């Protein structure tokens, strides 16, 4: 199992609330209540058997009975309440921000109730995903934000069996409540190199049963090396051009539409990710993953074809015309655009180069700016950028995707930080659609509100979505079968997040 990059050695840290440095195996030791699929939002139950909203602000989970911690103590709803209160007491642990929505939690019998500040039905997925820790051990920890938790006790399918800086091993928890569904007896996490090429060699050499790695020409480099080798590269999120919407000409939707029409998205995907994924639908949905939410009235499922004539017409509406191969404004100045992205994201850089070529062909002068990843984050959060490459969506939940990406409440002034909606889009209609979706518990209302969001994305083009970022799952069926696949897409093949728990409770011995 390729799970952790050690850089180059691993440091023991099984604290499930450590934002940046916990080890991936932690997710097999601590279980959340439920896990929503990043593909379509379907819930897989773990410590809760199900959940329901008694009203759009009151979320009730039914807690599973008969579960024990790996030290033999019984697990109860009190542990769940304890965990949530712990996150309230130490905001540093609340890495998913549950207390920004929750106002109180309570238990009664085997029911756990979370009351929200405002109606937010899709937030159930975030609440459900909080890993639950045992009250009888965690109540006595002096500073849980600095706690390395080297002897983790959880309810999950595996327990820690050995730890070395180069590799740690988890062993199957024999008293796990669904032990029958856990095929592997041990899971090994070796440390990885910081060098991408070295990692690729390790993957291709057959070191792992499950690896997550982009490989060029995967059929020749991986699949052909062993009859047991298979891969699945589904789309995970959407990569797009985020224009700084506080700057002209990006304030003009006609200009943005012009840009959108000037780009051959499939060609960008071909160059950036070897064509493993396609150009992105301007619906804002990740297709085919979120197919069931797609507005049938969008032409060609929201895919926008390159159409230079229409692009020029749209630019003209925004007041820009072509002159001697250059797109100029009324004063004769050429439109200039600087696209920035982290220097080490090679697929984004390749995509940006191709995009720059295509925009150059319609007369826009495009420069690329490649800062370090941390500097890039600072620039986009404070709004000091022209156009940035970034990802949109990827949670599987249209509400969360559109809210994170576009909600006006996040649109901070320039020089005030915001991670979400850093392009600073403001649209009252979109906010209303989000509010409707947040409060909707019936599928019909949810569908209609989602369609409204998609149409805003399609018509107003707040973000020029380019192509789908892939999720690079490489598997071997030598020891286990039942990996997620195009035929059985129960989760994304991402070994570094809680998909690992979903996959490892579904594998079968080969």
């Amino acid at each position, binding site marked *: 199992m390729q799970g952790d990059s*050690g*850089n*180059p*050695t691993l*440091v023991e*840290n099984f*604290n499930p609330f*450590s*934002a*940046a*440095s916990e080890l991936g195996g932690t997710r097999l030791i601590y279980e959340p209540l439920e896990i929503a699929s990043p593909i379509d939002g379907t819930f897989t139950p773990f410590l809760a058997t199900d959940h329901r909203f008694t009203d759009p602000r009151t979320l009730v989970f039914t807690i599973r009975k008969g579960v024990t911690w790996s030290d033999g103590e019984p697990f109860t709803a009190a542990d769940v309440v304890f965990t949530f209160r712990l996150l309230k007491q130490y*905001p*540093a642990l*609340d890495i*998913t*921000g549950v207390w*920004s929505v929750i106002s109180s939690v309570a238990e009664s019998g085997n029911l756990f109730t979370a009351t929200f500040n405002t109606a937010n039905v899709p937030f159930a997925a975030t609440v459900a995903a909080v890993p639950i820790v045992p009250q009888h051990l965690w109540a006595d920890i002096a500073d849980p*934000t600095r*706690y*390395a938790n080297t002897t983790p006790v959880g309810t999950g399918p595996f327990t820690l069996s*050995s730890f*070395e*800086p*180069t*590799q740690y091993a988890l062993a199957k928890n024999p008293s796990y409540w669904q032990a029958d569904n856990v095929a592997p007896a041990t899971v*090994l996490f*070796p*440390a*990885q*190199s*910081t*060098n991408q*090429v*070295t990692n690729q*060699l*390790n993957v*291709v*050499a057959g070191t792992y049963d499950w690896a997550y790695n982009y490989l060029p020409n995967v059929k020749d480099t991986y699949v052909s090396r062993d009859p047991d080798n298979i891969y699945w590269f589904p789309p*995970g*999120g959407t990569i797009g051009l985020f224009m700084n919407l506080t700057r002209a000409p990006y304030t003009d939707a006609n200009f943005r539409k012009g840009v959108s029409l000037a780009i051959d998205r499939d060609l960008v995907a071909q160059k950036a990710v070897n064509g493993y994924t396609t150009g992105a639908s301007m619906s804002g949905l990740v297709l085919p993953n979120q197919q069931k939410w797609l507005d049938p009235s969008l032409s060609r499922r929201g895919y926008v074809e390159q159409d230079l004539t229409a692009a020029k017409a749209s630019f003209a509406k925004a007041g820009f015309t072509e002159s001697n191969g250059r797109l100029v404004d009324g004063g004769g100045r050429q439109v200039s655009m600087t696209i920035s992205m*982290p220097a080490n994201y090679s697929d984004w850089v390749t995509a940006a180069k191709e995009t720059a070529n295509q925009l150059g062909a319609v007369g826009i002068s495009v420069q690329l700016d490649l*800062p*370090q*990843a*941390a*500097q*890039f*984050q*600072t620039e986009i*959060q404070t709004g000091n950028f022209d156009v940035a490459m970034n*990802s949109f969506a*990827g*949670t599987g939940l249209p509400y969360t*995707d559109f809210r*994170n990406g576009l909600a006006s409440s996040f649109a901070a002034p320039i020089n005030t930080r915001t*991670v*979400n909606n850093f392009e600073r889009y403001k649209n009252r209609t979109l906010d209303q659609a989000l509010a409707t979706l947040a409060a909707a518990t019936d599928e019909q209302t949810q569908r209609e509100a989602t369609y409204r969001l998609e149409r805003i994305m399609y018509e107003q083009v707040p973000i020029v979505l380019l192509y789908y*970022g892939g999720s690079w799952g490489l598997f071997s069926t030598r020891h286990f079968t039942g990996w997620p696949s195009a035929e059985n897409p129960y989760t994304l093949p*991402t070994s570094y*997040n809680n998909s690992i728990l979903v996959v490892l409770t579904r594998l079968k011995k080969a």
Partner: protein
Amino acid sequence: MRYFTRRVVLFLITLWAAVTLNFILPRLMPGSPADAALARLASTGQPITNAQRDAIQAQLGGANGNIVGQYFDYLGNIFTLQWGRSYSYATETVAHSVGRALPWTLILVGVTTIVAFVIGTLMGVYAGWRRGRAADATVTVGATFLASFPPFWLGLLLLYLFAFQLNWFPITGGYSAGTAPEWTWSFLVNAFEHSVLPAITLAVTSLSGWVFGMRNNMINTLGEDYVTFGQANGLRGRTIATLYAARNALLPNVTAFGLSLGAVVGGSVLVEGIFGYPGIGNLLYTAVTNQDYPLMQALFLVITVSMLVAIFVVDLLYARLDPRVRVGPEGS
């Protein structure tokens, strides 16, 4: 004695300047530790949120205090080796991280530096002695050829051929996954197998510098009168080459050797990165990409101090090797 005092004072002033720069430079980097952590999360493709940034900022804590206060804390902590907690490895102290990585780099880079110096110098002596002949041409052309290999490229090539295709050596790490460092024969063999390819990469690419330096010094020295005098007195060629010419030609190379021993502690970021070697170079890479100020400070401190100590020692050593330095111009 005056020479010695002057050196010590200069050493202390340089040390203070280096230590201060070491504090300032990481903080001039664009971006912030929280953004670096966030960028790392984002690079895995998962959606990131404001809530995450707030939590990460709270977990990292400290870094936002008064900059002057931070500087004096830092100066005080240097002497007590209290370097604080690393941002990248939240649960570990910086001193612990550095201590774990240091032996690996010292052995790998240290041994290869010494081996490359000895072999390169001997080859340089030989080439200089046989200047203009076939042997000289072979050594010089060979060294030029090797010098044109970038270390990371040679590393990848060796990795692909000997580790991936032929399976003679492991692909990554300082030792096999699942074993822990211990003083047993099997572990030492295992660690040795892991060090062969990075050692060859480092040695081969640094060899040619020593060869050229020594060869050119030799040629200069061989033109000196005392060499001609020795030849006229009928000394054997080998005696002249090794005992008279090489001894004097060695001086500039000793300076360079001292400096490169000081640089050993810095490791080799590229080569260690390629081979996933658990040394200082890799740790430094991690620290820089995570904007881990405490870890960066500690590493740069260790690197600059060992460099300064190396220069200091070379200065003192030089006084023994070459009395002219000690006496100074007024003595001549």
